[in-house]
């Protein structure tokens, strides 16, 4: 096994062999993030339930009851909760990924490992939170007597993948950018907040006139949330155009993010 170190590498190549060698590290980073997260908290993992639930209640009061935003005839609480479920996976994941290289700078400057591992492991906690939040959703669906169609079981993992690709793509870009320009710290919370209102979380896609709906696809979360509502709550039809644009765009984001990461990765230790 020869290791060759040269000034330049072929950045488009992904070293699967090396990635596989470090699989245990993958596990330990994820394990560390989970352990550390709920150390010294009084209610521990209950936070994962508490956050989306309270957000749902607050949104229902203000946007549902007071502002009377349309929800396509579905009870507003469950309507907004489905949106929040995927939105939180995306937004929490994105902010964790964006800070992952900065947060681990003491390791990055002292030891080599494939840096991309940190990108994936920093998503662990938001993914776990997503599954916990799914349990709450099941409870709500029983409460409101919603029976999901069987295709939901096929669609949900697929929507999860689109969310994952979008988060990793945008996250890789921001986290690599963050290594040199700490501006990300200021941009990101602002960006996420704005994006919440540009994503059909608190309002339905039907609010946008049909001929312009495809534009929403540049934010892949639109297609994800719209489709999730259709398959879980059984109203309306899957907007295939919006969904395919969302899917395509998420792959494009992923490639851009990865390209930028690969071009800068080797210099992290010098710049961070």
């Amino acid at each position, binding site marked *: 096994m020869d*290791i060759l170190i040269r000034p330049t590498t072929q950045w488009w190549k992904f070293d699967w062999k090396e990635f596989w060698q470090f699989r245990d590290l993958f596990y330990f980073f994820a394990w560390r993030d989970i352990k550390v997260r709920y150390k010294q908290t009084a209610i521990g993992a209950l936070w994962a339930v508490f956050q989306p639930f309270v957000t749902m209640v607050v949104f229902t009061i203000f946007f549902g009851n007071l502002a009377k935003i349309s929800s396509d005839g579905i009870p507003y609480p469950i309507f907004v909760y489905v949106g929040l479920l995927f939105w939180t996976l995306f937004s929490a994941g994105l902010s964790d990924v964006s800070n992952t290289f900065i947060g681990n700078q003491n390791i990055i400057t*002292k030891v080599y490992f494939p840096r991309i591992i940190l990108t994936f492991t920093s998503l662990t906690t938001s993914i776990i939170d997503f599954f916990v939040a799914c349990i709450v959703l099941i409870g709500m669906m029983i409460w409101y007597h919603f029976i999901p169609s069987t295709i939901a079981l096929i669609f949900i993992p697929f929507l999860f993948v689109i969310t994952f690709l979008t988060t990793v793509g945008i996250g890789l870009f921001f986290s690599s950018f963050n290594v040199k320009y700490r501006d990300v710290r200021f941009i990101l919370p602002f960006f996420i907040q704005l994006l919440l209102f540009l994503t059909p979380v608190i309002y339905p896609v039907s609010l946008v006139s049909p001929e312009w709906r495809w534009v929403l696809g540049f934010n892949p979360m639109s297609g994800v949330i719209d489709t999730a509502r259709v398959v879980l709550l059984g109203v309306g039809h899957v907007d295939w155009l919006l969904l395919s644009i969302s899917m395509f765009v998420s792959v494009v984001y992923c490639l851009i993010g990865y390209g930028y990461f690969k071009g800068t990765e080797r210099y992290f230790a010098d710049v961070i």
Partner: protein
Amino acid sequence: MSAIIEVNNLGKKYLIGEKERYLALRDKLAHPIKALKNTRSSEVFWALSDISFSVEKGEVLGIIGKNGSGKSTLLKILSKITPPTTGEVCLRGRVGSLLEVGTGFHPELTGRENIYLSGSILGMRKKEIDKKFEEIVNFSGVEAFLDTPIKRYSSGMSVRLGFAVAAHLEPEILLVDEVLAVGDAEFQKKCLGKMGEITKQGARTIIFISHNMAAINQLCDRVLLLENGHIKKNDTPESVVSEYLRDLTHQGGIWERTSSKTVAEDHFVKSVILQNSKKINTRVFFANESIRIQCCIVSKKQENIFLAVGIRDVLSNQIIHLNSKNQKEKLQTKAGKNMFQVEFENILSAGEYYVTVWIGDASFVTQDYVRDCISFSVDLSNLDTSYHFGSVIVPATWSMVHLD
């Protein structure tokens, strides 16, 4: 046997003023404009240039040189943390690098959890850690605190735990940076012992950076001396170490204040000179010599002042503190330059030390303070005894009576 490590023409460039500019997408896009605009703005600094050497399997290579000579940069390139600007390296085996003790420790996690975390960051597989867990715990001596978060550990304890994990790494190539310079003396001895054990097995190839000449002499088969990013010498430990010490001696033991201090204070330190018993300026002291520290002090007026001289080791531990307040005699300045001198027996053990000088006025208020202004080495190779541990060597008499 073919070389396990081959380094050809290695160079590493940094831009002074800012850290290395990396290849950003934006830079690539902006390149045509940048090329016009940005050619002369930053100064180029080669941290390493023209480095070529090879290491055979099972060999222990030491790297020495002054601070800033490029030792750590070289190790960082070999361990893939930072890329070289020119040249290439070929490593034929699994590499483990130890640039810091306790890499990846998380303060919130317990000792047990951190052993697994740090071990895996350093490149161990979970199975390996499971197998060596007992051994690591025994070596570290923190059994009782395994389930305590390490934020509650003393710094010594976490260093011990960190080294214990690292010492059980088993790569074919091990890169070590000055980690032996940590921990208390007893633990250092244990670490040196462990290093010696590893090197004697001969299965592992080691590259080892240190300021501890005794350890270099003892452990290495060959030594590289780096100076300003170049290899100055690549030879046996004896010849390289003696050349390094000779260089230090030739540099003379003089520190001078370069920045013109516009002082509000009445007294300031102009220069510090180190001399040995023969009144020769030097930066190397041997056993049974005395160390003489002279300070040139510029004063504005006549005053009884206080002077303190501190000697710190590489870890900034205060080893010796000499304070004129502890003495009866008064040190009196006159307007202009004054030369003060303090002399003491060299009781330091081998290593690198830093001199700090402090001046206080008649009411013991700080006038000037120059921290770590000049460094010197202590070399005990002229002693025929070798059991010297701890920071100082104290003359002692032994006796024994038979009871019964």
